[in-house]
């Protein structure tokens, strides 16, 4: 019986370790996906806002540090004329939304980031 209990204990340790490591791996991927999204926002901010077309931009494919592949898509949108946007034209500002998607053994995941691109010399 003692042997059985020890076995059960080992099983639980293994399960706990697996759960924790899976959780931290998932968190790690979320974090890396955020970095990818942030990097894409910055990359688009460095480009000419006026020259960027509205809609989905060419998708970006890459791998996280553990080899898991991801696909990132930047979607640019018009901000609209009124409200807080104060008549800004599409040449002056655009909305940017980044979606980073990946799939692993636990299923499909995605991370979003959103910002506003403006014409400014940095």
């Amino acid at each position, binding site marked *: 019986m003692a042997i059985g209990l020890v076995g059960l204990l080992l099983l639980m340790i293994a399960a706990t370790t697996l759960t924790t490591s899976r959780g931290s791996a998932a968190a790690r991927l979320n974090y890396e996906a955020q970095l990818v999204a942030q990097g894409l926002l910055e990359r688009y901010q460095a*480009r000419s806002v006026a020259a960027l077309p509205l809609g989905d931009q060419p998708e970006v494919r890459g791998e996280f540090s553990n080899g898991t592949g991801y696909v990132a898509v930047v979607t640019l949108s018009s901000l609209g004329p009124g409200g807080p946007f104060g008549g800004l034209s599409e040449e002056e500002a655009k909305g940017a939304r980044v979606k980073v998607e990946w799939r692993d053994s636990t299923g499909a995941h995605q991370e979003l980031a959103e910002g506003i691109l*403006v014409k400014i010399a940095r």
Partner: protein
Amino acid sequence: MHSRSQRPRGTLANVLLILVLAFGLLLISASSSLVQIRLNNHQSASEGSLRLAEATANLMIARLIKDPALDENSNLDGSQKEIRLELSSYPGGEGYVTLNSDRARQLNIPWSVNNLIKPARQGWNDTPVAGETAHIVAEGRYRGEVSRVEVVLYLPKFPYVISSTVPISGTGLEVFGVRDPAVMEQGIDAVRPEDREPGHVATNALNNTAMGLHGSTKIQGDAQSRGGIDLDDGAVVTGEIRPNADEAPVPDIDIASLDPTLRAGAVVDPLSNNLGPTTLSGFKKTVGNLRVSGPLTLDGGFVYVDGSVEITGGLSGNGAIIATGGVRVTGGGSSSFTGAGGSAIIAGDSVHLESTGDGVADFRGLIYTEKNLTSRNINIAGSVAVNNPNGTGLTELTDVTLVESPELGVVGIPVTTTRPGTPAGMMPGGTTFHANVDGSGRYGFPTPVTQTVDDGSGQTADVFLTANMNGPNPDYNNPPAIFEITHPPTSREPYFQIAMPASRPADLITFGSIRINNLNREGPCQSKEGNVGWQSYHEDYTDRTSARSGLLAAAQAWQVNVEVDRFLDDSENDVWNRQMPEFVEMYNHNAKLLADPDAPTEPGTAPIVIPSFVELDLSRFYNLSDRVKILSWRQL
């Protein structure tokens, strides 16, 4: 050996121990998962609030660039004084920014200050916000997390040390900026690393190699291109490398409008088409090409050539070469391009600068071309613009150092012209305010005493202590600081016009000066006018405090009680009520007459030398919104 009764107890203890351990492990596992979930949520909320803050700050930047006049009274969204931004990726979250401190306090958020076109004011958290800057603090709130982003915008006089519509090719090119041109006293190459600031380069060419940085090129700033940027292994850009960037502003000058014959009042001398080594001053113009075989020195020279220019001995001094065609300057010697006061080269065609002697030459000032720029072995401090309208051509910089210097990018040229005589109809200066000009003893000034005239004649004269309030001598190129300038000189109307100050200044003695005459009661006097004697020595005081001390000392020397304060009060009142209005009328009338070359000259009067000042400033061709840049960006 264990007894039978001990074995079950031992087994039970083992089971209990293992169950406790198992329960502990379950607890750890559960709490670990919980912590993980919380961390994920926290991270996600943090990221969301930060993105909202950043997006709101960006939106405020765009709004300020579109309308730099936005201030604390501006409605930023309908009738609201704040911007509230929602983004679909962060449901329930909001970004906030406002320029109104009262509204900020109501919303419990920081406020931003826009001083882009205003003088310095304090901002949120007692942050000093300088003039020509904006301090933006945006806040994002999402799932209980709060993030703040602080952005400082500023208005550099020149956004780039070189902005070009054609591709830039740099080999051995070095680019940096300096705040104070004095750090270049020992030469541009001698600027210490700690005095070097960022200097930026930009091209609007669209091809893949719109900016080629080769060899040991070092850009201590940003490299920006509408097309691509080709960076060799040895080349370094310490700032941002921005291919596919926005169009950079490039100045666009109407060169023909700089023809000095279009300047009202300018006396323009014709210039020969072929010159040897020479120094040029004043306004000059030649039709056809100009060739200078040897060095050309500009000493306040403003040279306009309706054609092209070739100078073979280098260019130095302070002035401007303006050509509707190209400008080619070659020469030897490391100082042959140095202009201490700065020079300008403005050309409708290509500009070629090359030091062909020993060492690298320095050029200080501004360069503008509407075709190509080629420069070799030249250090250029100031501002460079290549505005080739058709975009084909090249800016080729070989072994060149470019230094961004806002001060040197503006070239001021003192140009003197000579009028044949005094214009007819000049108004005379006004009369002064006297205390005792007739010796009548006003304000307690003494009646005359008899003194010997010190001219060997043995005569005597009546001498009395006196003082008077004098106005300034009118300097038609530098109006007295006490007045407001209502019209600065322009190329068409090259004269100042002034007006009375809006409110009465505190010390009106500064308008001119109090002069005290005949300070010595015992004499002698040095001259005699009628029966009144005058001592050659006098004292002048240009503020009330010192004038009061001087008058009291003089009264003591004469052993009289002078009503010093009443005299000074009356002097100031006379200045304010009579002298200054008279001076304004005279100044404005005479300034216009002097600037009018067609005004008839008073016969028999001597020629008048009129100094004028021509300022060439590329920055005035930039829109304010083109100049706005981000100085700093940080998360608070």
